[in-house]
């Protein structure tokens, strides 16, 4: 059997402040196949972002390793592009410049100037933002910013696309639009995607597998759910689909029965 594309091997993370140390993640093992869409779901504060940042290389794991194509991940890099929750576009650059910054940096050696321009525009087209290429982030809506953030990440041609609650700050309608866009892009490009979410429907709709995390401290993977739904998926048809409903229930059960979030009083 082929080795997994992306593999997390007993990854653990402790934050220490002075003498005190809190273990946030403990022995996370996860294998992701090429082209797979994985969601990570769990209650707020359980360590989802920490896990994603470890895969991105932005945070060092305390124990364990992350392997991408059998190479250990130590630093951040464009092969693991991140879409951050609050878009993190550079406000002094236009939409176009935000994407071309990434394109120019990543493919300066491999593409000519004209090709880089074409590639920037191609990625803006993918997220339907080419029309606003000369606008600044402050002039476009939250959903549009997130689209540009996705375009910037896609433009790096990452091996793994990392999304940290990409639609968390958006209203329901905009969120649905973006989910559709992400599904379409995933269908076209076949990227390997790891997405953090706290939205059960979003997880079931988009993912091939859903990784459910237990509550922290020392959060671990509680359960991994296969989502056996054929693609392309249509949200309206799925509402009454038996498999969809079963998946949804399984995730809800996990989150609200077995691992209820006990709010600190």
């Amino acid at each position: 059997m082929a080795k997994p594309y992306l593999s997390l091997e007993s990854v653990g993370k402790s934050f220490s402040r002075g003498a005190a140390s809190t273990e946030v993640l403990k022995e996370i093992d996860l294998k992701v196949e090429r082209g797979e869409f994985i969601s990570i779901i769990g209650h707020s504060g359980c360590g989802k972002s920490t896990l994603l940042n470890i895969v991105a290389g932005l945070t060092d794991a305390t124990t364990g390793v992350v392997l991408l194509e059998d190479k250990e991940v130590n630093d951040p890099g464009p092969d693991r592009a991140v879409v951050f929750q609050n878009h993190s576009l550079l406000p002094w650059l236009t939409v176009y410049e935000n994407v071309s910054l990434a394109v120019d940096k990543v493919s300066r050696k491999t593409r000519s100037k004209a090709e880089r321009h074409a590639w920037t525009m191609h990625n803006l087209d993918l997220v339907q933002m080419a029309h606003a290429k000369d606008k600044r982030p402050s002039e476009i809506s939250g959903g549009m910013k997130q689209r540009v953030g996705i375009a910037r990440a896609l433009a790096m041609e990452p091996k793994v696309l990392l999304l940290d609650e990409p639609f968390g700050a958006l209203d329901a309608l905009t969120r649905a639009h973006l989910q559709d866009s992400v599904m379409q892009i995933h269908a076209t490009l076949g990227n390997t995607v790891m997405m953090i979410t706290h939205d059960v429907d979003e997880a079931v709709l988009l993912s091939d597998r859903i990784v459910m995390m237990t509550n922290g401290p020392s959060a671990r993977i509680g359960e991994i759910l296969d989502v056996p739904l054929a693609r392309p998926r249509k949200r309206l048809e799925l509402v009454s689909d038996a498999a969809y409903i079963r998946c949804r229930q399984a995730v809800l059960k996990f989150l609200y029965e077995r691992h209820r979030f006990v709010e600190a009083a």
Partner: protein
Amino acid sequence: MSLPAIETETKVHRLPGAAKVLALPAPSSAAALQSRVMPLLRALATRIVPPLVTLAALLLIWELLCSRTGSSLPPPSQVINDSWELIIDPFYDRGGLDKGLFWHLFASLKRVMLGYAIAAVIGVALGTLIGQSTWAMRGLDPIFQVLRTVPPLAWLPLSLAAFRDGEPSAIFVIFVTAVWPIVINTAVGIRNIPQDYRNVARVLRLNPAEYAIKIMIPAAAPYIFTGLKIGIGLSWLAIVAAEMLIGGVGIGFFIWDAWNSSLISDIIVALTYVGIVGFLLDRLVALVAHAVTRGTANS
């Protein structure tokens, strides 16, 4: 001060557009012109008329207060009378110190520009160092916090001793006056760069030079310009005082010289010019800041 100014500006831009749309069905050119020009005039009036009225009122009060016999200060009418030559011809040059106000202001501005430019370069560099490196901050920040409270003029004797010349001493005083707000604001700006922007740079693997140009400077620009704006104001405050002590051509010594010759009217004219130039310097830096930072500050 600057907020209402911005508001009126947007009104100026928007109203003519609205008027154009309204004027379309009935293309009477005179009416269209009027509806386009009137709001502009009105906006101009709202900005210009109030300060003019205030100025006229103040001049009137001053005239009334100082017109009595035995008054120690001249009224405005007498100032104009006494210093007419100074007011109408700022460019005359009879050699030595007997020059028009333009030349004095020009000499002062040259000193300020030199000292300020050095302060800007060194201030931004030091501020970047302190903002980037925790150790540089721990080492330098306490020292800077003490040094920045030393009044500018207190440096003058020391710098005269060091440079043995008035000119570099004055420039040094300007430098040491302007540099602290630039250092401190730059450091705060760099420290406040959102972690998200740093993460973007790390994912893209920007090298230090690219990071500085593409992320650090633009992200910190609003703070840096706040420092630069405070710095230029302080420089202009300090130059007048420093020049009173070092002598030579310059607006500070001109004022001191006028006092020694009891030319009170000349002093008042000079002060007016000092105020106007200081205001223009402030506006100039604000303008550059606006052009450079574009929409950065408000997003």
